């Protein structure tokens, strides 16, 4: 848990961060967001005192750390930045082991920790341990940067637009990885971004800042449905609000039982549709359930792209339905067995 109390930063008589108070509970993924110059980065950097704070208190766990020497505080807080800043003269392993080294961990302990973290980020320890930063791709370097921030098992992880400088595809992969790592480690995270989609995807709580003030601090759904003022309203963007909402809902929330196709009764009428499955319950094809042509008799082969999983955001499931021009999507488990379906009607039938 980390709590900021009345955090204020004054430069030349002007408050760039003004009286920001918020609390990120243990295991929560908090995101600070706002337009350029809103003070989100300054706030983050005041937490580990890279920027000295003018006023306010920082509480880590149940300890007031405002007066702690900055170096000691920073060794308890992970820090990952957009430009990564890996040490070019050290190997990946040496980079990750920096904070354990500063904390004087035994060699064997920090070696084991390096391997554990490389595995956590799906980087083969044998291959990557002795590489130098210039031999890594942008995505790999950023993974190592986050692994380094997590090395000494910090109480809080601060991330300053960590995926701002990578290409969109890598960014999406890294975001998914971050969600997985967060789910696995239950770290308390404070994450700065200016990208609302990224915030909605990652955050369990979002703090919107404007001109140095905290405007709203809420869960993503509440932020979308109950914006505190016009600024939040504008910042979220009304145009694709429906889609943004769906990006915070999951397939399992819309999932219902899938009607199975029965050879003997082989008839479906109207909008009805049915799933044909094989002996292992893998969906093979959809009977009916299409808008184009003679919808009732149409058969659509299931392929790997137009299925959903229970953890998929509903926005993505909807996108697949639109793309493949079907009214329903099979929901499958890890073994590819049919466990339910989501339908266009289901999406519309639920009040956002």
């Amino acid at each position, binding site marked *: 848990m980390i709590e900021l109390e009345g955090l204020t930063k004054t430069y030349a008589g002007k408050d760039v961060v003004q009286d920001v108070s918020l609390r990120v509970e243990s295991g929560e993924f908090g995101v600070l967001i706002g337009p350029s110059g809103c003070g989100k980065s300054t706030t983050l950097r005041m937490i*580990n005192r*890279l920027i000295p704070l003018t006023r306010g208190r920082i509480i880590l766990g149940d300890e007031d750390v405002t007066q702690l020497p*900055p*170096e*000691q*505080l*920073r*060794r308890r807080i992970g*820090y990952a*930045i957009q*430009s*990564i*800043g*890996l*040490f*070019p*003269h050290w*190997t990946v392993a040496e980079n990750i082991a*920096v*904070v354990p080294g*500063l904390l004087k961990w035994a060699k064997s302990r920090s070696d084991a920790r390096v391997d554990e973290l490389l595995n956590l980020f799906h980087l083969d320890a044998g291959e990557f341990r002795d*590489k*130098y*930063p*210039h*031999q890594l791709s942008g995505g790999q370097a950023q993974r190592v*940067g986050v692994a*380094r921030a997590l090395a000494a098992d910090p109480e809080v992880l*601060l991330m300053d637009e960590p995926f701002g400088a990578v290409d969109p595809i890598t960014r999406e992969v890294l975001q998914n990885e971050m969600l997985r790592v967060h789910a696995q480690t239950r770290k308390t995270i404070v994450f700065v971004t200016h990208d609302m989609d990224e915030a909605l995807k990652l955050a369990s709580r979002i703090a919107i800042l404007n001109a140095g003030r905290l405007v709203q601090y809420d869960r993503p759904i509440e932020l979308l449905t109950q914006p505190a003022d016009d600024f939040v309203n504008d910042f979220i963007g009304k145009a694709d609000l429906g889609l943004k909402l769906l990006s915070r809902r999951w397939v399992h929330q819309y999932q219902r039982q899938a009607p199975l196709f029965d050879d003997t009764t082989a008839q479906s009428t109207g909008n009805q549709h049915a799933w044909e499955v094989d002996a292992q319950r893998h969906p093979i094809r959809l009977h009916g359930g299409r808008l184009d042509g003679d919808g009732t008799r149409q058969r659509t082969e299931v392929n790997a792209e137009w299925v959903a999983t229970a953890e998929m955001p509903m926005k993505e499931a909807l996108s697949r339905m639109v793309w493949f021009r079907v009214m329903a999507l099979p929901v499958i488990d890890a073994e590819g067995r049919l466990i339910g379906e989501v339908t266009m009607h289901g999406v519309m039938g639920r009040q956002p």
Partner: protein
Amino acid sequence: MTFPSSLDDRANTAGIVANRVLTTLLVAALIGAVVLPFAAMAPNRLVSGQAISVIEALLPWQWSGLGGLALALALCALRRPLPPRRAHLLVLVLAPLWLLLVAYGLGDYAHRALQDASPAARVSQSAAFWVLVFCPTLMIVDALQRLHAGLALRSAYALPVLVGLAALFAGGTFDALSIMREYANNRGTFAAEFRMHLLLVGSALGPALLIGLPLGLLAYRRPGVRGPLFATLNFFQTVPSIALFALLVAPLSALSDAFPLLDALGVSGIGATPAIIALIMYSLLPIVRNTYAGFAGVAPATIEAARGMGMTPRQLLWRVELPLALPVILSGLRIVTVQAIGLTAVAALIGAGGLGAFIFQGLGQYAIDLVLLGAVPTIALAVVADFVLQILVALSRPAGAR
């Protein structure tokens, strides 16, 4: 039906020469060998001698050997028949052979020419000799460049060539040459002056580093200091060396007169003290500037990350900033070392000693070979120091970037 192949031939004749540098060097060497005198034969060390051409000086097997090597090298410069890589490798074999043959030929000529001459007679090398030495040296450098040879390979290659030259020296090939006669006459002082030269360079570089490194760090940390500091050091650099040596004489004499303690410590207006002070002043600018540039070149993200990880300023300096700045700092040291070795030769003018002493003696006596006795080792020293520091710079690069 032969149309395509004839087109092919034409394309090839258009670029018959593949290596223009090698061709130019060969032509220069040949012209030099024909036009310029190879050696000079004089009745004594003070008068200028009679010019001896390459053909006169060398035995038939020697000059035909040189001609054969030149032909083979010319083949290496052509587009065909050798592929480029093989041609460069062949140059690396032929050029040193040429170098050693020229050196051996000169020494051998001196022995033969002096056999029935008066004991005062001297044989010296002349312009064509230098041309015939420099051209193959440049060919070697060029070939190494074209092969993208790394430092390790260069060192490994230089070794047998140097061993060959050392063997010629040890075998007495050059003993009859005038410069070696000068060496023999000054054998006792040569070693002492050589040591003095090294001592002067060392006593200047040590303090220059001790002062320059902190000043460079200061310039990096305090932008306000940077301007005035660099302006001052730049000013030192613009004072001509001879003038600076001379300007230091008066104040230092006054100081040592006023404080007997300084006098007792050996501080005086002439000799080593003003030389060392002047050398330090000249060395400061490159050291301070490169130290500053080295630190300024460390990526801000790296420093931010190091601070964010919880490094203290001291840990940041020793573990991150200094190792990353080191290659640039050592490049500064390399500049300064080579510069100091050269400037120390001038310091002999104010009685500091060193190899420059031979140069000024030789100038005074109009004995060119005595000048060379001071100059050639000075150059050799500078080349060796440059090479050693180049290796240090390479070793200090981040392991991953080597």
